[in-house]
Structure formats: C-alpha cells, structure tokens
C-alpha cells in the first residue's frame, strides 16, 4: 500500500494550526488590565474567602467575612490599628456609664448619612442591635448580657446591661454589631421583633447588598469567587479613594503571589513566609507586617486515656523540650511573637518581655529533670492531633513534625494523628483528645474572652479542675477598671497557666500582607477585621 503516503492527513498544517490557535487564544487574552482606567479605580484584594457563610453582619462568624462587613457597615465604637487597649469613637462620639451603673449612654454623630442619602438616627442604631439580639445567631452570644437598647432622642441611645461587670465596649467594636438603615433592610424582610429568629428573611438580600454607612456598598457575592463593592458617595468621612473594591477568592497562596506580581491584584493576604521573602527586593511591592492577636497553640490534656499526661511535671517537660525560637525563626521566617500563655502579646498584661521572664523556654536538662521527677525518666508517648490546614503559611503538619522531632530529644514520643477539622473538633471539644495543635482567634480584643475561655470551656477539654482562687483571680482581673492593676492580676493568671502546663502557645503571627505600591492607605489591624479600607486610594 504505497498510496497511504498520500492520505492527505498532513500533520504539519495540523500541528502548526493547533499551535497558532493556542497562541491566538493566549495572546492578548490579558486585558490591558493594570493600565486601564477601570483597573486603576478598582482596589482588588486577593483573599481566601471560602470560609464565609454569610455577609449579613448579624450572622458574621468566620474569619474572612468581617473584612467586607467592616468595609460596608460601621459600628458605634472601634479600635484603631495598633492599639487594642483603648476603644475609639466611630458612629458614636462619646459614651458614659449612667449613675445606675448598668446603662451606657451613647451620643451619635449627627452628620452621618446612609448610602441611600438618608441620615442615620438613633432608631436605626436601636433597630440594628435589637435585630442581632433577637436573631440569636452566633454574634448574639457575645452581647447576651445586653438587656435592652433604648432611643433617648434622635442622636442618643442607651444600652442597658444585665451584668455590668462583663465587658461590652470592646465587643461591640466588631463588625457584627453595626448600624443598618432600618427602612432599607425592613423592605427586604428584616425585623427586630422578638420572633426575628423565625421571621427575619433579610439575610438573602444582605448576602449581596448593604445599606450601611461604610465607605463602600456591597453589590454582590459569588460564593468562592468574589465579593464586589462600590463607592459610597455619601460616606461621612469624605469620598472614598476607589470606585470599586473587589475581593477575589484565591485559596492558593501561590496564585495570590503571581497575581500580585503581575498587578492583577493589589493586596495579597494569604502569602506564606517563603513567598514573602522573595518579594523583599521587588520595587513595585511593599510588605507590611501586622502583629495579630491570633495564635497557634498546643493543648495537652490530663487525659484519662494517658496516665503520663495526668502528671503535671510530665506536661511541663513538654513545655521545656520545644525549640520555640527555631519554630519562629525558621518555620515562619521570624514573623511571629510568642506570649507567655493564652493572652496574646499586645493586650493588657502581655508582652514579649514577660514571656522571657515567666514563660516556657527551650531547656532540655530541665525537661529531663522534670521527667525524672515525674517518674518517667525514659519519657512517654502521647497522641498529637491536628487538622489539614495552615495558619499564616505555617502548615500544622510541619509544626507537628517539628515538635515531634523536638520532643524526641528528651524521649517524649508524639504520635501524630492528622484528621479533618470535623473529627478534630469533635474530639477536642468532647474532651477525648490527648494533644491538639490548633488555633485561637478572638471575636474581639477583650482579655476576659481569652481568660474566661481557659478556665471554663477550654479547661474542661483538657481536664483541668480549676481551683476557686484561680476563678476569683480572673473575675477580679476582668472587673478591675484600672489598667495597671488589671495587668498585674493578669500576670498572676499567666503564671498559673504556665504552672498548669495544659497550653503551650507557639506562634502569634505577624501577618505579612503584600501590597502594590500603586495603592496607599490600606491599614492592617489585628482587631478582627484584617484591614481598614476606608482610607485606601490609588497613588
């Protein structure tokens, strides 16, 4: 069959044609992008938003959704970046406890307009907070001690507390407790009635829209794709710097890095330390660090299933066998601090200097001595569980393996148990875990939220039977209004935590956020909403 050579299925045109087509598809596929006017007017943020289940402020309970919520809505009070001790005015200009000791009177700004152009009034404030209380979703738990909110006049509201020893101002700074335009949201089914839990139908609308006083207005949310916002022309602090804000869902840090380098996004939130290191020499990009109030910790329970762990000295031995500096210097590229215990560096009574003074440090002879004291000179084993996730670019998996190697030096054997978040939480919350690597991020920068957790629900998980004097210590520290005295009490609390050796705080990340130098004014914050976008503008 010689004529097979003339079948005419010429391969060269075929291959060349294919390559040409591919070239045509790729060439110019990238819109002039970075240079175009529309691009310049848009602030594009790369962020992993897969965790968000709602953008309705009254239902915000995840890690990423406070950012859009805080951008679209304002609360009465706030924290400025870097200071998480002193509450600052936002929609309220001033506030004061009334003589009855349980009512706080807020004076409102009188120049604030909603995005619709209508003025903000005390009734909007009352309605919004009342809705959170009656909706009984997660945010409500933090203001459960608010009895009622009352309108005094158009620009004054009273908040009545059922338990005034519990903190409130630090909590209502969070974007869950914002002011909505009552008329606008009622139109879409919102209600503040006692049966709001069943009757309120506004969440669907609020997932895609906002009617607040923030710098930008929410205009759409495509799950796991993006959140769109446009400028609020009536913003009370002046016209915002961008026409639009776009939060792009990017789960992969590598994608964020490449998109940032190419100018496809302006801000990358989820870079890992190795990637940040490569950006240091890039003239177009600036890396900003912001010490968070989050931390990764290892909980070690006095588990009934493991007699060795019931021995306090054995647990303390773990604390002295970990190479903390190696972890911070290498695994997270030095971008972290370490608190003494469950109070992050930056809040009242917690500093890095104090960690050096009273915290755990690597001290192998001491660890060995503690093990001998515990009657376990050859060490012991325990199960260490963790999820398949990363915080600030540090994989739990790597951290667990590093700790495993560290503990092996004194004969303590950590048996790693990777598991999904579901099984991990079930085990930990049910008190069935021996050792757990996990994460704590506060709903608001309030000392008591950390301290009360450790002596209450977290104590149960690690089988710590908290003595009454420790409970009194925490209650006194929280009720004390003098910051210095309160700080001294919290120091004592941290000494107790170290002695108890149920929690080892390993990493409190300094989040590294990379931004293109074509934008300015994005301020990072550790207060819970990642960043202030209201002052952002193009250069």
């Amino acid at each position, binding site marked *: 069959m010689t004529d097979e050579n003339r*079948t*005419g299925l010429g391969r060269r045109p075929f291959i060349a044609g294919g390559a040409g087509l591919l070239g045509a598809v790729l060439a110019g596929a990238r819109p002039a992008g970075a240079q175009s006017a529309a691009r310049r007017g848009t602030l594009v943020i790369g962020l992993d938003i897969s965790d968000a*289940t709602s953008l309705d402020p009254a239902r915000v*309970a995840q890690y990423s959704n406070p950012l859009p919520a805080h951008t679209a809505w304002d609360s009465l009070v706030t924290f400025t970046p870097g200071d998480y001790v002193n509450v600052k005015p936002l929609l309220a200009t001033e506030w004061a406890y009334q003589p009855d000791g349980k009512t706080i009177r807020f004076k409102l700004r009188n120049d604030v307009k909603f995005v619709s152009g209508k003025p903000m009034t005390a009734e909007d404030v009352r309605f919004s907070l009342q809705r959170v209380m009656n909706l009984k979703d997660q945010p409500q*738990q933090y203001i459960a001690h608010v009895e009622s909110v009352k309108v005094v006049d158009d620009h004054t509201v009273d908040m009545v507390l059922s338990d005034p020893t519990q903190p409130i101002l630090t909590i209502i700074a969070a974007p869950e407790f914002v002011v909505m335009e009552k008329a606008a949201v009622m139109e879409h089914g919102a209600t503040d009635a006692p049966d709001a839990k069943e009757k309120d139908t506004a969440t669907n609308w609020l997932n895609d829209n906002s009617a607040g006083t923030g710098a930008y207005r929410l205009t759409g949310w495509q*799950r796991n794709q993006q959140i769109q916002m446009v400028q609020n022309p009536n913003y009370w602090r002046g016209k915002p710097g961008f026409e639009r804000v*776009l939060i792009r*869902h990017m789960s992969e840090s590598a994608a964020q890095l490449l998109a940032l380098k*190419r100018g496809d996004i302006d801000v990358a939130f989820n870079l890992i330390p190795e990637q940040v290191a490569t950006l240091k020499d890039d003239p177009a990009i600036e890396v900003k660090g912001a010490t968070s109030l989050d931390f990764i910790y290892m909980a070690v329970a006095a588990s009934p299933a493991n007699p060795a762990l019931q021995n306090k000295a054995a647990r303390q031995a773990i604390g002295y066998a970990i190479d903390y500096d190696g972890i911070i210097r290498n695994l997270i590229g030095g971008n972290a601090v370490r608190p003494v215990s469950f109070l992050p560096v930056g809040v009242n009574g917690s500093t890095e200097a104090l960690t050096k003074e009273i915290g755990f440090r690597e001290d192998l002879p001491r660890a060995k001595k503690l093990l001998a004291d515990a009657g376990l000179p050859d060490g012991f084993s325990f199960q260490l569980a963790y999820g398949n996730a990363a915080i600030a670019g540090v994989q739990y998996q790597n951290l667990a393996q590093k700790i495993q190697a560290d503990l092996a030096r004194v004969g303590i054997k950590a048996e790693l148990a990777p598991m999904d978040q579901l099984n991990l939480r079930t085990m930990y919350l049910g008190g069935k875990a021996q050792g757990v690597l996990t994460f704590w991020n506060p709903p608001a920068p309030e000392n008591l939220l950390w301290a009360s957790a450790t002596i209450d*629900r977290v104590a149960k998980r690690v089988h710590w039977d908290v003595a009454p004097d420790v409970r009194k210590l925490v209650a006194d520290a929280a009720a004390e209004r003098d910051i210095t005295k309160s700080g001294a009490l919290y120091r004592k609390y941290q000494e107790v935590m170290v002695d108890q050796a149920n929690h080892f705080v390993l990493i409190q990340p300094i989040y590294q956020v990379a931004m293109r130098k074509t934008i300015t004014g994005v301020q990072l914050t550790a207060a819970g909403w990642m960043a202030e976008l209201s002052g952002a503008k193009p250069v």
Partner: protein
Amino acid sequence: MIRYVSSRLAMAAVMVVLATLVIFLISNTVPGDPVLTQLGDLAASNPATVAEFRHKWGLDLPLWDRYWIFLSGLAHGDFGVSIVSRRPVLEDIADYAPATVELASVAFLLSLVVGLPLGVMAAVKRDSWIDHVARALSLVGVSAPTFWLAFVMLAVFYGALDVAPGPGRLDPVSFPPARITGLLLIDTALQGDWDTFHDALAHLVLPSIVLAGATLGLITRTTRAAMLEALSQDYVRVAKAKGLRARIVVMGHALPNAMLPVVTLGGLAYANLLAGAVMTETVFSWPGLGRYTFQSAVSVDFPAIMAITAIVAAIFVLVNFLVDLSYALLDPRVVKK
C-alpha cells in the same frame, strides 16, 4: 424494546437509591459531629445551642427517618439545605456545576480534536514514527499525576514564562457576565462580550490541557485500535481494490465504522472527567463541583454529600444506560436475551 428500556430505567433508579443509602450509612459512622464545626467555639460549648442546631437540621431524628426524609425530598427534586453554606444544595450545585461542565467539556473537546486525528494517523501509518510518538504520548499522558502536572504547568507557563493567565475562571479585573447558563463561554458569546469571552477561553487553556492529559491517551489508543480493526475489514479491502483513493477509504469508510467504540468509551471518559476534576480544580482555584464535593465531604455536610452522590450516580447510570441502549439499537439480539 419499550420493556427493555423501562426495565433498565427502573434498575438504574434502584442503583442510584442504593448508592445514596451506602454513602448515607458510611457517613453516619463518622465519629465527627458536623454541628461542632458549624458553631463558634462559644456556641459549640453551649448544649442548648447545639441541641437547637441539631433539631433545626434534623440531625436529632432517628437514622431511618432522616434517610426517609432525604428520599421523599429526592422524589420531589428537593435535596435539602446545605449545613455549611446554609443554602439549598441545588442552588449550590447550580452555582458550582457550570464551571466543571465547562472545564470538562473543553478538556474533552481538546482530547477529541487531538486524539482522533492522532489515533487515525497512528493506525493508517502503523509502525511509523507517528504511531510510536502517539503511543508514547498517550502512555505518558495516562501516567502523569494530574495534581503534579497542574502544579508544573502553572509554575512554568504562568509563573516563569508568564504566557498563560493564572488560576480561576476569569482575570481578577474582569467582571463575570450576567448569568444565563453559568457557562462563561456561552454567556459571554450570547451577550456579545468578546473581551470576557477571550479571557474565559484563555483561562481554560492550562486546566483543560491538564485535565485532557489522561483522556487524550485513552481516545488515541481506542481510535487507533478501532481504526486498525476497521481497516482490516473486507469492505475496506474491497473499496481499496476498486481503486478508491486512500483518503476516501479512510475518511469515508473506515472512520465512521471505527467511531462506535470511541463514542462509547468517550461517553464514559466524559463522565469520569466530570467526576474527576477535583485535583485540577484544587490547584487552579477553579470553583467547580470537584472542590464542592471535597469540601462537603471534609465537613460531613450530609445534604450536600447525599445530593452529589445521587447526581454522580445518576450520571454514571445514565451514561451506562445510553451505551447499552446504543448497542441494543445496533444489535437487536441484546434485547431478546
């Protein structure tokens, strides 16, 4: 014929229900409690809140009641509400499915466009260099781990060379078109938004090449084998003996007859593409069904898991059924048996 079809359809429905039952039972042995991941730390420690949440999602009902509720919902086309996203599962799936369908379709098309001619040429020029190249190429395609190939492609063509667009379905600056079908190529074309069309097409290049890798090998091999079979048939030899030109013999006579096994296998391969895109979607940040499946499984989102199981099972059963049906139509003996 009608009896054959209806009995096969009934069987298919039973299969789908059985598949959901098995997955339901396995998921229920998971020690993890889906409630705890959905509630915050504070709420999860409050027994009243947990009990209320459980009640709201029907998790406090006996096992069989829950399965019964699922089944009766299924009969009405209602898959329930996802525990994680708090939206109707069907809405979720409608959101995620088009991305996967688009990617899988383009990948499938790609493997056809390259695999068919390659297979035909390999058969016609058997033992020539092109045959060997086709063989090696398809073997390597089948052997490469998808997740690794995706990483390498992205690192090389996007990261290092900067000739291809990055992860995702569109550039960060592009706005998605108004939703009609959810398939970006079709929606943009319908609306005449050719810039976005171009953008979406370019974003499909890398992931579809990665996804096509394995299918391409399959299509090439099947085409080649079927063509060899067809070329050795008597009628082809008769046609050649009559002096018809080789091109006409190949394209007009052998190829159409070689297509049946290719179509059959292609159907199954396409169904596999739909189900198997999870790794490609993960690396390319592709908001598709694969990732939704993965996330639902990780969080033991019962309604979502059950719905996906039912849908995937239905797709497989349907494809199998169509394949069998095409045989039955071509070979009446199958029905009689």
